[in-house]
């Protein structure tokens, strides 16, 4: 029987909100292949977090795995896959998932298809699969053929909803890999917490500015609105490249990908690079002089006109509220 393994990451016992997303396509795949589905996580701390999922699987344990260590994670997973003869391994394509899977694939010298959105065909010639995967950060898709005995995939984040836990506690077996101590060379040695507070990734509202803002000073009014709404300021790549904002404020393919309740895009035309960073927002309000700007046409709401004038009026209106 085909065995499918889903790698689910936990960070010292905590699951990220999207951690379980890859399970959804995995369930479907298991159905269609009539395969068994199991999960794996690293570190005993993950046991409690993953048991409620209700799937059987493995908790990988080893002293070197005391904290996140991508090389060791990859080796451990590779050993599990080999020993237990899993033929399909799936993980979410977030930072760690992508990294661990790449290590595992490299160790086992197998291909890895990154950021899959659809497993289109599992009955291709010579046992090959056809999948749809993300390119250009989501602006384009690729139909790809995967020719290998073992099928390793990462699932594009924010593509599938995480499944509801079924409540039953799955039996998670402990798996102890053989890992040389030397692989601790790529383990986290220190964590630095930055000032508590909102970040681009967590803020419920992001007030973002682009070319239309015009200068670093002009971001002041965006800051003011963000403060009033309990959000943070973001920006486009143009603003970063012009030195108006630090890169940490950048929303986009090569910046931060965000999914706030409301994204307010001021003077941002909406190049591919930016759009893929903000498209997961629940609502988008675009403020732009150009009613045909790509971001305006893709937004849920828009105000046409000069952003400085509009923001000033909105701020005044908010302050005038009873």
């Amino acid at each position: 029987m085909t065995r499918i393994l889903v790698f689910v990451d936990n960070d010292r016992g905590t699951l990220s909100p999207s951690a379980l997303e890859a399970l959804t396509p995995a369930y479907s795949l298991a159905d269609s292949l009539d395969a068994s589905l199991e999960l794996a996580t690293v570190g005993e701390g993950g046991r409690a977090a993953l048991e409620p999922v209700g799937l059987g699987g493995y908790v990988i344990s080893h002293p070197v795995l005391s904290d996140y260590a991508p090389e060791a994670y990859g080796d451990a997973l590779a050993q599990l896959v080999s020993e237990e003869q899993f033929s399909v391994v799936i993980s979410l394509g977030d930072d760690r998932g992508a990294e661990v899977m790449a290590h595992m694939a490299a160790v086992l010298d197998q291909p890895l298809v990154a950021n899959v959105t659809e497993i289109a065909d599992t009955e291709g010639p010579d046992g090959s699969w056809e999948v749809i995967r993300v390119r250009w950060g989501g602006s384009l898709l690729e139909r790809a053929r995967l020719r290998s005995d073992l099928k390793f995939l990462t699932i594009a984040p924010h593509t599938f909803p995480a499944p509801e836990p079924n409540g039953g506690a799955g039996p998670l077996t402990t798996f102890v890999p053989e890992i040389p101590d030397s692989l601790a060379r790529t383990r986290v040695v220190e964590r630095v917490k930055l000032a508590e507070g909102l970040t681009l990734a967590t803020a419920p509202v992001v007030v973002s500015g682009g070319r239309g803002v015009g200068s670093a000073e002009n971001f002041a009014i965006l800051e003011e609105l963000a403060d009033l709404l309990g959000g943070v300021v973001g920006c486009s790549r143009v603003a970063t490249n012009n030195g108006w904002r630090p890169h940490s404020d950048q929303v986009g393919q090569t910046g931060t990908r965000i999914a706030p309740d409301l994204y307010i895009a001021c003077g941002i035309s909406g190049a591919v690079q930016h759009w893929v960073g903000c498209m997961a927002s629940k609502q988008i309000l675009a403020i732009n002089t150009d009613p045909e700007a790509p971001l305006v046409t893709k937004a849920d709401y828009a105000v046409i006109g000069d952003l400085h004038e509009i923001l000033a009026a909105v701020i005044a209106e908010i302050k005038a509220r009873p």
Partner: protein
Amino acid sequence: MNILVCVKRVPAPGARIVLTDDSQGIDTRHLGFTTSPHEECAVEAAVQLKERHGGTTTVLTLGPPDAVEQLRYSVSVGADRVVLVPADSTEWDPQATASALVEAIKDLEGDSPFDLILFGNESADSGGYQVGIRVARALGRPVISGLKGIEIDGDQMVGRRETDEGFEVYRLPMPAIAAAKEGITLPRYPTLPGRLKSRRAEIHEVPAEMTPGGQEMVSLLKPAEEVTETVILGHGAEAAPGVVRLLEEVGLL
């Protein structure tokens, strides 16, 4: 400090990507090409390390002859030496890319490995998230991805990567490898003398074999476009009340 940076030539699209008629690529007739953004920052990081610690920065690309444009650009912003690993313009899968790079890097290194090899976290176009890791594994060197800060401490590379709360720190013994993310540092623009120097730069060519891996691009397709009916809340300042109502509905006020 001898550093190698592996970069990829990618098109620089606007707001709309147009596919070629056969859907095998994107229509680049009107597009310029650039170094994939993460790698552009990696080059800058390498140049800054060299400026601080001495040594050389080598930039390597596997790509078509036109990729020389990106190599010259890297010279114009401070790279000392550039290497083209000639490839055709077809899609090389991550395994093929990694094995060709390994071959080329071994050729370049001989007996003296680079202290540091930097990659981009993922390329802007194909986004495989794995070439640097595969190369590191083949060379038996430590590697981390998502590099957002780098310092050299003796024979260790101190790398930082971002987390939701702040950042985590890694210490890798060198020779080491890392895949950098944009934001690790702000890339400089070339100067006129830099650009002129780059025109005269010698392009070293290191051949490598194409060994296909197990992933093959069949075709490209456009994602189904969500048709959004944009609600225009108004023009100019008069739209303010409408915006405030929206903020209330979303629950921000």
